[in-house]
């Protein structure tokens, strides 16, 4: 039951990532296409643009969601591949534990950066 729930969350995160990560990639790597579609604003990687996104609460929430879904989806997939290569019960527990600890650590770091940047946007 637990594995089927984890797998369902893997599919849900995949669908969420198609939208969230797709938008992120469009903003970062398809600037000309977005300008042709009528988008305005400076270069995505200019510090002023980064600060503007940090000020927007909706963008901060979307970044946190993107990070959470990406970490879960990626680490669940990597966990599956690693458990195929090392399939003993002890290796499975190690892989599961390491994936969970690593994912939580990176998520906490990312959210702290998002919150801190949001609070100090414009004062840096």
């Amino acid at each position, binding site marked *: 039951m637990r594995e089927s729930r984890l797998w369902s969350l893997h*599919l849900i995160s*995949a*669908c969420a*990532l*198609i939208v969230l*990560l*797709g938008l992120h*990639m469009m903003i970062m*790597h*398809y*600037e*000309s*296409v977005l300008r042709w579609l009528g988008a305005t604003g400076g270069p995505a*990687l200019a*510090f002023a643009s*980064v*600060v503007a996104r*940090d000020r927007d609460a909706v963008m901060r929430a979307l970044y946190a969601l993107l*990070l959470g879904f*990406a*970490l879960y989806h*990626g*680490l669940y*997939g*990597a966990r599956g*591949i690693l458990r195929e*290569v090392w399939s003993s019960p002890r290796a499975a527990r190690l892989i599961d534990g390491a994936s969970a600890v*690593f994912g939580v650590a*990176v998520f906490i*770091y*990312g959210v702290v*950066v998002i919150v*801190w*940047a949001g609070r*100090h946007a414009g004062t*840096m």
Partner: protein
Amino acid sequence: MTIQIPAATPHPTPPRISRRLGLRGWVYAGRYPAERYLYILHRISGLGLILYLPIHVWVTGRRVAGPEVWDQTMAVLKHPVLVVGEFLVLAAFIFHAFNGIRLVLAHLGYTIGRPGHPVYPYPVALHRQRPLTVVLMMLVAVFLAVGAWEFMIR
């Protein structure tokens, strides 16, 4: 007269042969259709993306150190090797996303047809999904081409 029946000779213990292919199975293990190689590429692109993600989180976290540090970081990322690497990340995401759409649809039972009787010519789910596979790979090619053009004009 008694008939001596010789004692049965014990069967020799067969040698332990591992039939697990391991990573070699990712390359070839028989009649792999094209979709099998798409799945292997899906795994490789996924591993590449999850290995890139923590580095990306750390690099983008540099913005909290101020505009000078951010501009220095962006200048480092303009190195040609890193620009190629960034394009590979974009390519990995484009392929992983579109192939993932195919996999999610197949997992949920869409685009693979109904189960049929095993009557020749046998219906195969992969063949039923092949038109969608071709369309999705064409979309991957289009997005990759536009992405490559964006990188070149930067």
